[in-house]
């Protein structure tokens, strides 16, 4: 083998070692038959950076909650925000669903909604909840959604790129997960 290829081969090996999902700082463990851990949530890239008000929808993976005046906001992890009137708490009314890909977090001041569209900070004018308007965006400003690994440590379901883009992570009961970090 010609000499110049050796370092390349070595760094290639090192790289694949680093990329491998197996923990390298602890003894290699066999994946458990059943364990709580993160699994990727996939989404299509079609509406990646479009923020809009849509008809109310079912809560699937109810995420973080926020209250402003008589309105409850619940994040649909990775997908957007449910807007629900709780003016009469015994009969809450779903008003709209704000589509925000990769959404995990939110806060509101006056009529301005701040949320994460993947790793962009976006400002959305929600004065008219039926027609919300993106008014500002700071691109790639933080690291809230990691497309390769979930938050925290432990076993997780490996990413399958054929299923789409990772828009978030959810807790699930995993069976023989193959990835950990």
């Amino acid at each position, binding site marked *: 083998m010609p000499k110049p290829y050796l370092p390349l081969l070595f760094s290639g090996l090192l790289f694949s070692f680093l990329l491998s999902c197996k923990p390298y700082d602890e003894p290699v463990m066999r994946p458990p038959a059943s*364990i*709580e*851990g*993160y699994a990727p949530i996939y989404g299509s890239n079609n509406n990646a950076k479009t923020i809009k008000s849509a008809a109310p929808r*079912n*809560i699937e993976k*109810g*995420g*973080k*909650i*926020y*209250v*402003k*005046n008589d309105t*409850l*906001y*619940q994040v649909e992890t990775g997908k957007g925000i*449910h807007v*629900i009137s*709780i003016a009469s*708490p*015994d*009969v*809450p009314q*779903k008003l709209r669903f704000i589509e925000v890909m990769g959404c*995990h*977090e*939110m*806060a*509101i*001041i*006056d009529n*301005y909604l*701040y*949320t994460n569209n993947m790793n962009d*900070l976006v*400002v959305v*004018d929600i004065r008219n909840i039926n027609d919300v308007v993106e*008014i*500002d965006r*700071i691109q790639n*400003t*933080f*690291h*809230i959604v*990691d497309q390769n690994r*979930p*938050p*925290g*440590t*432990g*076993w*997780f379901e490996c990413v399958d790129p054929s299923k789409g883009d990772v828009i978030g992570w959810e*807790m699930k009961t995993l069976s023989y997960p193959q990835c950990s970090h």
Partner: protein
Amino acid sequence: MPEKHKTLPMKRILSLLIILIAIVTFAACSKDESGKSTTPGTPGQGGSLARFTIAWNYLYIVDDQKLYAYSLANPQAPQLKSTVNLGFDIETIYSFKDKLFIGSQNAMYIYSLTNPASPAQLGTASHVRACDPVVANDSIAYVTVRMGSTCGGNQNALLIYDVKNVLNPVQRNATPLTNPHGLGLKDNRLYVCDGDNGLFVYDVTDPVYPQYIKQLKGETFYDVIIADDLLVCMIDGGTALFQLGAGDEITLMAKITN
């Protein structure tokens, strides 16, 4: 008796009136002045698991490693004013008055907002490796630690820190729990979400020694917001709304899970 009013001299009424007008005018003036530089709007309320919080007209955000301070002087166009490296596995942020309380998987950090553009580190309390939201007031911080496959750790508990000396928080007590997540503090009541073990209500009149009041069962509780007399709970599959009544009566109003 109505006759009594007649005995009040007109002069006295007049001077009282003048003083009253002066006070009202002064109050109005000072309000105008304080609003001149920036007019801070009214933020809503987030839960204890949040990574976004608004305080002092700034939006503070934590990701897994850093704290970001965005000025909302113009709320339509936030400006990033500073970034602080915190460490690893940062999970939650909570603001109280001029302080930020930040939960990571192995510590609670306290930051000063004396200069809101540039939060400055005060104290740190290290704890066992675990998932850990924080709520706090002037003297006490309540932290839940939960063990689990994604958090590590070997303790499920409510930890109670004395934060009167913000440079050196001291753990004063711990209450064992089963699967604690988010928590909420209002006046002398502490609400702790203990996963599928329910929601615990404590009297924290003596803040170091929470007195168990009751446990709400039937849902898997993850986080709680106390909005006036409403408990808004993030539960498995959605949200549950409870009315807070006299004598710690808690009544389920509705569940939003589909």
